[in-house]
């Protein structure tokens, strides 16, 4: 039976480290997994709301059988995109700060100076 079959979820190969402290790499993976699960939960709530709207009652089977049509999936896509944007607000801010405080002038001046010397 399928209960006996377990696909080993680990991949082979050296794991790269992105931060000086390995705990940050691990925390990052945990935060990402939580983000995914929260999104799954939100979709499930959305399914429940839609079923209740339509039928006023529901069963577990109704939830499992529910499949978003393209219209529902488009709405969920928009919501996920908003959710992901909120989640990574801090990254967007850093990116925007970098563009706003454009050091290209400084860089160009430095290049001019080097060209002259």
């Amino acid at each position, binding site marked *: 039976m399928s209960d006996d079959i377990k*696909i*080993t979820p680990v991949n082979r190969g050296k794991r790269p480290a992105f931060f000086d402290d390995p705990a940050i790499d691990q925390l990052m993976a945990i935060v990402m*997994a939580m983000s995914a699960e929260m999104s799954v939960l939100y979709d499930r709530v959305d399914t429940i709301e839609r079923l209740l709207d339509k039928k006023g009652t529901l069963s577990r089977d109704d*939830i499992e059988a529910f499949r978003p049509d393209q219209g529902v999936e488009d709405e969920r*896509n928009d919501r996920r995109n908003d959710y992901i944007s909120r989640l990574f607000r801090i990254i967007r801010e850093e990116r925007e700060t970098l563009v706003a405080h454009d050091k290209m002038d400084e860089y160009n001046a430095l290049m001019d100076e080097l060209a002259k010397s």
Partner: protein
Amino acid sequence: MIPLSDHSMLAKRVHDEESRQSFVNDFRVHLASQVFPGNFPTYYNRVLPQFIKDKGREPETRHEVRRVMTHDPYYSFWSAMQRNSQEMIWDSVIDSVERQLPELIEKSRKPGNKGSLTLDPDLETPKYHVAADIHLQPGAYHSDQIDDDVAAGAMYDWGTYIYSMGGLGTGNNALGQITYGFFKNEFPDAKPKRILDMGCTIGGSITYWAQQMPDAECHGLDVGAPVLRYGHARAEALGAAVHFSQQNAEHTNFEDESFDIVMSHILLHETSRTAIQNVFNESYRLLKPGGVMMHMDLPQAHGQPPLEGFLFEWEIYNNNEHFFAQLRDMDMPELCRKAGFKDENILPKSAGSFWMEDQTPYADDGFEFPITMAIK
């Protein structure tokens, strides 16, 4: 997320699995469109000025850029998220495959009889394939955990689709569409009788070719048994006649001069320095006089500025694409010459998604794959 076109071998997803895969897809789209581009201002505003201050010059190579960019906090954070998104792909497909595995194996045991499947349990899986799991797929493409296992193929089907953010087309066959469109354009009157796709995994490309050219005898080979079992059952489910065999592209058991086309789709960068020459030698041996070799792979480093060159290599270091580091600088025409092709018949080309029939939202960014083409 636009789902893959259904076929009877495709693992069905329950409510939460579908939702989880959609999140990973949308997250990757966000990374590609919103976070990745920030690496450019990071470099030009922060990393490059510091480099110039320290060295009095700009970085000359992508390797110099790597040494400084990998210490930048923005790049590191994007990189960590990107790596996690890759592992989350597999995590999001594993449950549905695990649950349906007995059923999928049962279906694959009586797939149909348009094509065929020939396995070789004694075939040695090459070192470059077992050293690290390519693309971080747990167990890679070759691991059998139970008899007649198809799990690697079933995971690959959904996994590569999410990886490409739908860019492989809803039939998961964009690469085949691209080489097919390219071939028809180059040789409009050709009527190939026998076609070989090397390193075909689940046969996405060769199955597409077989659907377009039902009169041709189409073969696909790979070292991985579970992807071939799945690929065969998938091709039959799609009504296509493909002959799958478990072989190493370096040395096959096909006869000399027995194919009109020998091709591969992003196989080369997953081999090794010795293996790649063997693959070209074998391609030459298998081609009939006038036959066409087409090896499609990822862009090389020539002509890429240092920053772009560096960013393009992220998967080498973070997604187990180790040989790609060497392939980036290799002389492809020289490999053809060494294999026996005449200079005037070596024709490096490129082809992109403009050959696809069903363009997907992420396929129209002008990405082009180089094709090392040579005529025997």
